[in-house]
């Protein structure tokens, strides 16, 4: 497929770099300031080298990207809340032009799900957003395949940053602030970590899942959210003596979304360590399915985007 990529951060860049390996070409690419378009395919290496040297990607405009001969738009701009702009407008423009859209940006699917579905219903293009939840773990595709109507709930760990912090605090008896600083130095946590440690990122993913289970109706503001900022190493030690640990667990059902720290038996599958993610999909007829893997980062998120693109081809 011919791809147009909006957003050249970690995810957008990785999709561009791996697109040839998956049989796709990149015909347009834009960051927040500049764009490059080539109907015959962009030399991704050269374009990314330009960007890494603080040079413009190219001399094209965002309008040129939408006028290009792309088959699928990859929306990988930074997640924004409430209006979910400019991502929402990007998706709308592509779908109204009957092109496919693959989302990595959580904002539109969490905050404006019904509007997106309505626009997608009137388009010959298809909207997919596997990469918005759980990185490389095919959570949404699995729910889609087994039929969302037969899924009772989805519960698990959907934020690698908070899981890394809790794991390390427990393993080394270190304070929250100490491990947060380490995580920031390692690039596991953002300079402003509230999105991850405050449970917002997990909540957005759960809102998307609840929207899928119930056909829409949920926003981030509907979610009950508690983060891990108040978790202490003495609490983790105490839990450890009882064979338990603490994990930030999100749960999505048709009734709503809950995100909070929870006591988890250390022997349970939910007690994954480090930046790993895991979900339990509870089904009406198939029992409980557990899926685990890398929940974030360029490679894992790009692999989810390629999974969506593969489904568009099939």
């Amino acid at each position, binding site marked *: 497929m011919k791809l147009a990529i909006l957003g050249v951060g970690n995810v957008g860049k990785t999709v561009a770099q791996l697109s040839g390996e998956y049989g796709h070409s990149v015909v347009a690419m834009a960051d927040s300031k500049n764009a490059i378009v080539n109907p015959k395919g962009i030399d991704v290496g050269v374009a990314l080298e330009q960007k890494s040297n603080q040079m413009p990607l190219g001399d094209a405009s965002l309008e040129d990207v939408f006028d290009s001969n792309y088959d699928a738009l990859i929306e990988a701009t930074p997640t924004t809340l409430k209006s979910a702009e400019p991502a929402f407008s990007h998706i709308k423009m592509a779908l109204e032009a009957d092109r496919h859209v693959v989302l990595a940006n959580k904002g539109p699917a969490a905050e404006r799900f019904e509007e997106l579905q309505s626009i997608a219903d009137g388009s010959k293009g298809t909207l997919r957003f596997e990469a918005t939840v759980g990185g490389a773990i095919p959570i949404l595709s699995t729910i889609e395949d087994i039929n969302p109507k037969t899924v009772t709930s989805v519960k698990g760990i959907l934020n690698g940053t908070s899981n890394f912090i809790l794991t390390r605090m427990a393993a080394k008896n270190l304070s929250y602030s100490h491990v947060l600083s380490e995580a920031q130095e390692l690039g596991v946590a953002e300079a402003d970590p509230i999105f991850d440690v405050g449970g917002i990122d997990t909540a957005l993913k759960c809102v998307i899942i609840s929207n899928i289970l119930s056909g829409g109706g949920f926003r981030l503001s509907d979610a009950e959210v*508690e983060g891990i900022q108040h978790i202490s190493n*003495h*609490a983790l030690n*105490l839990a450890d003596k009882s064979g*338990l640990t603490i994990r930030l667990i999100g*749960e999505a059902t048709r009734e709503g979304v809950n*995100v909070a720290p929870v*006591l988890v038996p250390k022997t349970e599958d939910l007690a994954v360590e480090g930046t790993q993610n895991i979900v339990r999909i509870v089904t009406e007829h198939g029992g409980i399915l557990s899926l685990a893997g890398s929940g974030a980062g360029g490679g894992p998120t790009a692999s989810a985007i390629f999974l969506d693109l593969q489904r568009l081809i099939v």
Partner: protein
Amino acid sequence: MLEPISSSGGNLLSIFHERGDITPRGEIPVEIDLECSPDQFESILSTYSDLDIHVTQTGEELYEGELIVLLIGDAISNNLSSVIASIDASGSVAVIESSVNRSIESPTEASSILRLAIKEGDQIQAVDSVRSIVSGYDLHFMTTTDNGVPQ
């Protein structure tokens, strides 16, 4: 005197000698609080009878489940007994066991794990009840994943 309880597999919770209420025959009544199954209870009563110890009154409260909660906050350091008394007074749950861990750097910061017995009824209701009680002490509350909701 407590051997019949332990040998039957019961769990002694408390023992209280009512020294201010000595019987006309000069005996000191003893109130024992314990947890055990109905069969164990019959065995304990039978053993006391064999030992010629008079059990004058028994009462029972049925607890069907167990709940583990972890609390974090200053009230653990300065008001834990009040927290436990409030939970016990709720009537729906009873505190069986508590353990406390304090911060080395800041001793006022502490956490506690409570093992609670739940009376017959809805476990989720018991969770909500305890959560509501401890929020009055400004404590962070969490419980295990098997309580249906992740809080």
